[in-house]
């Protein structure tokens, strides 16, 4: 017998994804803002909850009349769009603290022919806020089984899994609640909510108290800025110690291998190619973990929707809605989920504009490049009470945001004219994130980063080592080994193009694999220099000090400016092409960003050379 298909449906923020993760044991991220689940996520019900069915987590929606692409995914799926399986059972997750808000969707679901089971989530929160919901009355009114649960506290889940089983084995069609139009539907929702809520709940005190400051016209923006400044300071100050540990550990392994192994190609591949390449990226794990911890915490806490409200006006000046803030902020981690998250933006034009700007946000793959150059060229002394390196990093992030605003302005004036759709977003109640779920999400990100380092970066490192080693220079030829290799020859071709912006030959070579992924440039530089002519003296010295000694500061500054714009990520542009469904726009934006990168680097190099001379 094939497994039954069970769909989880509910409002945004109703705890659907938390329930999904708990029931399946899968580590899918939970966040407290609309539009986290933008794709259909599928997993088997874990054995401890009975097994035997496949659970599907659908994007949150308020009704089956979609206004955005992610909501359309849900309604298409449930109505059995051609080529898709229809679920045997719908679990409607209702937020007990906001019953009336959720019941509208419930009434829509009851009109479908699929059996419905209601999981009344966050019962613990509802009770502590003073609302007592009579579960039996609700079940009677709706005509379907209702199971009270708490997904994060894991209670009521066994009852729920029993209910799932019995709903599948004996499917019941629900009593059809009738309404004709939106207003009679609203009346019905109100009547049901009133009949089963025994005491009117007080509104969340925590939310009102925190919002007093967070939404305040003066304190609100200041809090937003302070939160960002804290994140960057933490990414630098707190990460330094674990990074030193990892770095010295990798150095020890490389040293051990190079003394233990005989000289030759294999040793070069292991030490210079693999350990040098992968190691130089793994060092940034602590910074990425810290960055994600902050972003995930703010999402789960419920702050991101507030940030949309605070930024709406500024975003409006470049033709974006405040809703664009949520995908763009997740772009701080990676542009790929950022582009996917734009599906929660209702207007096609706004969505296209947002996804075209997403690659400009300072993603975590830029971090290794920035960190290397900052460590090498910016002194770590105090500046206005902050670490000067932290200040420069903050400026680079601000640079990314200014690039988004500036390019947004240009695109609004040229290819995507018009105004953004007016903002409309629910500000969810603040919730203390479950530390366990938060920890799982952070570990998940760390694992993804390491997996990437172990697969993609490893492969690129080996290819890089090969193209910088072969073909090998015959003994009787003059010049260095690298100049004779494939990469060296390619570098010679692009070097003249990059000379005006201050990039040397080695940078030109390292930028080539950097088009696969930005952070690869760091490992590529490691490889290029380790094999390059001066390698004998530089062996043992790490990349930071080597770069510090051999590059002009203005070259480093130009490279930083280059990286604000440069479209060096295969995955991002692949996803952009898929989501925008336009090869022309995708390639256009690629060329545009490449040109901007060159111009920015040129300007920075010229100006800083002039000042420093």
């Amino acid at each position, binding site marked *: 017998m094939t497994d039954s298909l069970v769909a989880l449906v509910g409002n945004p923020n109703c705890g659907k994804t938390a329930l999904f993760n708990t029931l399946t044991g899968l580590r899918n991220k939970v966040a407290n803002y609309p539009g986290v689940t933008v794709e259909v996520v599928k997993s088997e019900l874990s054995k401890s909850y009975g097994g035997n069915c496949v659970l599907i987590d659908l994007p949150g929606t*308020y*009704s089956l*009349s979609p*206004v955005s692409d992610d909501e359309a995914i849900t309604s298409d799926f449930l109505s059995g769009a051609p080529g898709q399986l229809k679920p045997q059972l719908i679990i409607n997750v209702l937020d007990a*603290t*906001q019953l*009336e*808000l959720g019941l*509208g*969707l419930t009434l829509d679901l009851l009109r479908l022919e699929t059996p419905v089971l209601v999981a009344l989530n966050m019962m613990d929160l509802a009770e502590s806020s003073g609302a007592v919901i009579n579960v039996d009355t609700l079940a009677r009114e709706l005509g379907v089984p209702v199971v009270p649960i708490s997904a994060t506290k894991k209670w009521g889940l066994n009852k729920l899994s029993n209910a799932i089983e019995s709903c599948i084995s004996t499917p019941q069609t629900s009593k059809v609640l009738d309404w004709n139009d*939106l*207003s009679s539907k*609203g009346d019905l929702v*109100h009547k049901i909510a009133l009949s089963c809520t025994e005491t009117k*709940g007080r*509104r*969340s005190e925590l*939310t009102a108290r925190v*919002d007093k400051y967070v*939404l*305040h*016209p*003066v304190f609100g923006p200041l809090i937003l800025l302070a939160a960002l400044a804290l994140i960057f300071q933490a990414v630098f100050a707190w990460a330094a110690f674990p990074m030193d540990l990892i770095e010295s550990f990798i150095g020890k392994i490389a040293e051990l291998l190079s003394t233990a192994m005989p000289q030759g190609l294999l040793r070069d591949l292991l030490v210079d190619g693999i350990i040098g390449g992968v190691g130089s990226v793994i060092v940034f794990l602590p910074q990425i973990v810290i960055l994600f911890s902050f972003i995930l915490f703010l999402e789960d806490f419920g702050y991101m*929707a*507030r940030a*949309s*409200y605070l930024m*709406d*006006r500024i975003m409006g000046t470049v033709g974006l809605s*405040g809703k664009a803030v949520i995908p763009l902020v997740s772009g701080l981690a990676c542009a790929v989920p950022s582009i996917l998250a734009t599906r929660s933006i*209702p207007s096609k034009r706004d969505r296209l504009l947002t996804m075209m700007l997403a690659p400009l946000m300072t993603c975590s793959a830029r971090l290794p490049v920035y960190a290397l150059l900052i460590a090498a060229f910016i002194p770590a002394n105090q500046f206005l009470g902050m670490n000067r390196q932290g200040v420069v990093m903050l400026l680079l992030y601000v640079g990314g945001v200014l690039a988004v605003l500036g390019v947004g302005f240009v695109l609004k004036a040229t290819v995507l004219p018009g105004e953004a*759709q*007016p*903002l*409309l*977003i*629910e*500000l969810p109640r603040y919730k203390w994130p479950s530390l366990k779920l938060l920890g799982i999400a952070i570990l998940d990100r760390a694992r993804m980063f390491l997996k990437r380092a172990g697969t993609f970066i490893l492969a690129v490192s080996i290819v890089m080592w090969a193209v910088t080693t072969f073909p090998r220079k015959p003994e009787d030829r003059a010049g260095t080994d690298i100049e004779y290799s494939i990469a060296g020859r390619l570098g010679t071709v692009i070097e003249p193009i990059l000379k005006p912006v201050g990039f040397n030959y080695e940078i030109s070579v390292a930028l080539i694999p950097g088009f696969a992924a930005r952070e690869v440039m760091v490992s590529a530089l490691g490889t290029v220099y380790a094999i390059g002519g001066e390698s004998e003296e530089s062996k043992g010295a790490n990349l930071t000090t080597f770069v510090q000694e051999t590059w002009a500061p203005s070259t480093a500054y130009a490279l930083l400016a280059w990286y604000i714009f440069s479209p060096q990520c295969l995955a991002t542009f692949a996803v952009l092409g898929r989501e925008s469904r336009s090869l022309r726009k995708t390639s256009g934006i690629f060329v545009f960003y490449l040109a901007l990168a060159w111009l920015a680097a040129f300007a920075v190099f010229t100006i800083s050379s002039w000042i420093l001379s």
Partner: protein
Amino acid sequence: MLSHAKKGDRGQISKFQPKSPEEVRLVELGFKVGAHYEIVEQAPFSKDPLVIEINGVRIAVRRFLLNHIEVI
């Protein structure tokens, strides 16, 4: 009109006939005839968008979308 409300205003929605999909969404979020609202906050200078609490749910919205909501 709810679109003219100021920070701190409270009241009740008296008439609302949603026409656009966004207005339908407002109804789904609780903007129904008879619902009580309170203006929690508004953006500085332009006073737009604003934050409205309705049925205990907080919603950030541009005034433009509230043009057809009559209140008492």
